[in-house]
């Protein structure tokens, strides 16, 4: 079982790498590196949507990621690393990679709920595999739209920030989370370890 943390020019690559190193064989990998040996590729995320999309396009990830999936590999996108897997975001004008249907809409602030949504929120699920409910760290202004949230075929994570928000999904070997497991203390560590164990158990 090998994990690759993808360095495509954005994101807190080393934070994710440091956490994964605690319980898995992990390397920081570039878009042009061979990925055959990696069961799970993680796209970290700190950044704006358009900037991240520009980098994914420049790195040829629109071809690399589907190829990885077609060989039975898994992907985990974190924050903007998840967002770029979708079709579009109100934050930018560029199209996303569209590996997952759906778009991101700007959160609306209301009294007691400023935007960005920043801090630790409870995350729950009814169907997401192996997920242990608890508090995770969020920092974002855009979230998956309700339409995507209701779409068929997703196993989902939910949170609440005034309204229900979409905190994560799993479908067709793609995990995506809006929160930052690498910065969510013991809950985040358990979450990442469980994903890695799940992928390990699914590996052919």
């Amino acid at each position, binding site marked *: 079982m090998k994990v690759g943390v993808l360095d495509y020019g954005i*994101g807190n*690559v*080393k*934070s994710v790498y440091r956490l994964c190193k605690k319980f898995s064989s992990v390397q920081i990998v570039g878009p042009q590196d061979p990925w055959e040996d990696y069961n799970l590729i993680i796209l970290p995320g700190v*950044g704006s949507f358009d900037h991240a999309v520009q980098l994914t396009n420049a790195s040829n990830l629109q071809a690399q990621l589907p190829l990885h999936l077609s060989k039975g590999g898994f992907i985990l996108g974190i924050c903007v690393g998840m967002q770029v897997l979708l079709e579009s975001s109100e934050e930018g004008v560029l199209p996303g990679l569209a590996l997952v249907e759906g778009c991101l809409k700007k959160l609306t602030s209301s009294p007691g709920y*400023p*935007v960005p949504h*920043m801090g630790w929120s409870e995350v729950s699920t009814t169907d997401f595999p192996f997920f242990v409910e608890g508090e995770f760290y969020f920092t974002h202004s855009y979230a998956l739209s309700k339409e995507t949230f209701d779409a068929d075929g997703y196993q989902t994570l939910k949170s609440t920030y005034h309204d229900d928000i979409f905190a994560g999904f799993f479908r067709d070997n793609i995990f995506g989370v809006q929160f930052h497991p690498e910065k969510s203390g*013991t809950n985040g560590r358990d979450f990442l370890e469980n994903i890695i164990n799940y992928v390990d158990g699914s590996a052919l």
Partner: protein
Amino acid sequence: MKKRLIPVLQLNGRKLVKTRDLRDPIYIGDPINACRIFSEKNASEILLCNIKGSKDRIIDFEHLEEICSESFVPLAYIGGVSQITDFDRLFGMGIEKVGVDQLLLTKPEIVEDAVRKYGSSSVMASITVQKTRFRGNYFARSVNNVASKFELSDALNIAKDAGCGEFVIHASYNEGTYRGIDDVLVSRLPLWLNNYPVTYMGGIGSESDVGDVFESTFFTGVGLGSLCVFSGQRSGILVRYPNLSYS
């Protein structure tokens, strides 16, 4: 969502210190070790403040990376950020949020570039507030620890226009004094600030001060200096994280 209780680690070179009104640093210990302790205690966030950074414009990236390696909770950094490559290096090593102070007042266009590249939620406006002695007016503080030409409201507007997604209001004149929250300062803040996550720091010296911040204001975070490094008022060094929870 829970309010954020944020240990503020003041860096003086490679030493962890605690100042009073950003002066007279007292040596506390090793910031790497302190960061590890707060991370293990699942602190809401950790804020690293390079107290000489704004003046000297020197960031010790190598040391920061060592500190980052010990944190599995969110890390923010303030001090001496002056160019877009500073943002690149800080985010790359594992800082989640980069704070800008003097850069906002001198080159807001660089802050705008950083927001475009990294998103508003990653760029934090840190306004170090100076209170004038006689009239009690509030200004943003300059690098020389005196009031700049920017009134507080002007500085906040510059940050909003630059696209910053979070604000830190640092009542520096209260820092290390245990005076609690400055209610007058809070009353002078513009209403639009309620729409943003805002952290207050400076003078929070007791658990009841923390309660005052969250029960009487709109702040979503509080920066804790003395409360996290002293056992008494500027005496007895004890790195600790208060067992408090506010929603």
